[in-house]
């Protein structure tokens, strides 16, 4: 039995929803970033799967997946730098305790 496009899409959807659950329920800013990484990975699986099954002659999906991996690295670097800055000035990285701009 061949593994079709739908199987890959379902795995990617489950991974995306796990990442969404992590982003919505975690208090720790680093754990929220981990959830975002899971969601980006799910999007990448979709792109590569569509490239393989829908347009095999082109490599556009792989190109987009590589660009997303690059942007995910940028996002992780800047996001973790922000976490460091917040920890240095507020002594906490629990996002529900960081409420300086909330009234």
């Amino acid at each position: 039995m061949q593994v079709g496009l739908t199987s890959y899409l379902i795995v990617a959807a489950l991974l995306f929803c796990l990442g969404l659950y992590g982003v919505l329920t975690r208090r720790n800013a680093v754990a929220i970033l981990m959830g975002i990484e899971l969601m980006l990975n799910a999007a990448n699986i979709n792109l590569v799967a569509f490239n393989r099954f829908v347009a095999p002659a082109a490599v556009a999906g792989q190109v987009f997946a590589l660009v997303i991996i690059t942007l995910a690295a940028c996002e992780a670097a800047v996001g973790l730098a922000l976490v460091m800055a917040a920890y240095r000035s507020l002594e906490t990285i629990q996002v529900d305790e960081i409420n300086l701009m909330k009234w």
Partner: protein
Amino acid sequence: MGELAAFMILSLVTLIPAVVVVTSSNIVRAALSLVPTFLGVTGLYVMLQAEFVAGIQVLIYAGAITVLILFVIMLTEGGTGVRTRQLNDQVPLGAMAAVWLAFVLIVIFTRTGWPTAAGVLPAYNVVAVGNAFLSDYVLIFEVTSVVLLVSLVGAIVIARRED
């Protein structure tokens, strides 16, 4: 048959550590569980004949990003103890949203007839990807390099200790 078995094993290797990532109360264990998830996704890329993306996935995700996350956990130790409560008050709402979204997505995916084409990928993916990057997608390539430079400078400026 072998393809189906490999797909099932790789899916489990991807999804079970992902559950640990989002539910574990030990943040270091969650960060280390990212590694098998990323390696499972790498296996899925190999099954999809995207070898170059798989290699980059191992280098960037399983190597660089996990180490970066572990370093930040080490440097912010005051907020990451095992005794610290890791989940906020929206666990039921978050679980409902995630399950609902998964249900809707799976229903949509199984009911849609995707226009699959029976072709083959280029034999040497790296050559094809490199040609695509430097011909059709050269603007994306250049803009991404500028974004990399800006995020490098920005991360240094934000994380630097102010004197």
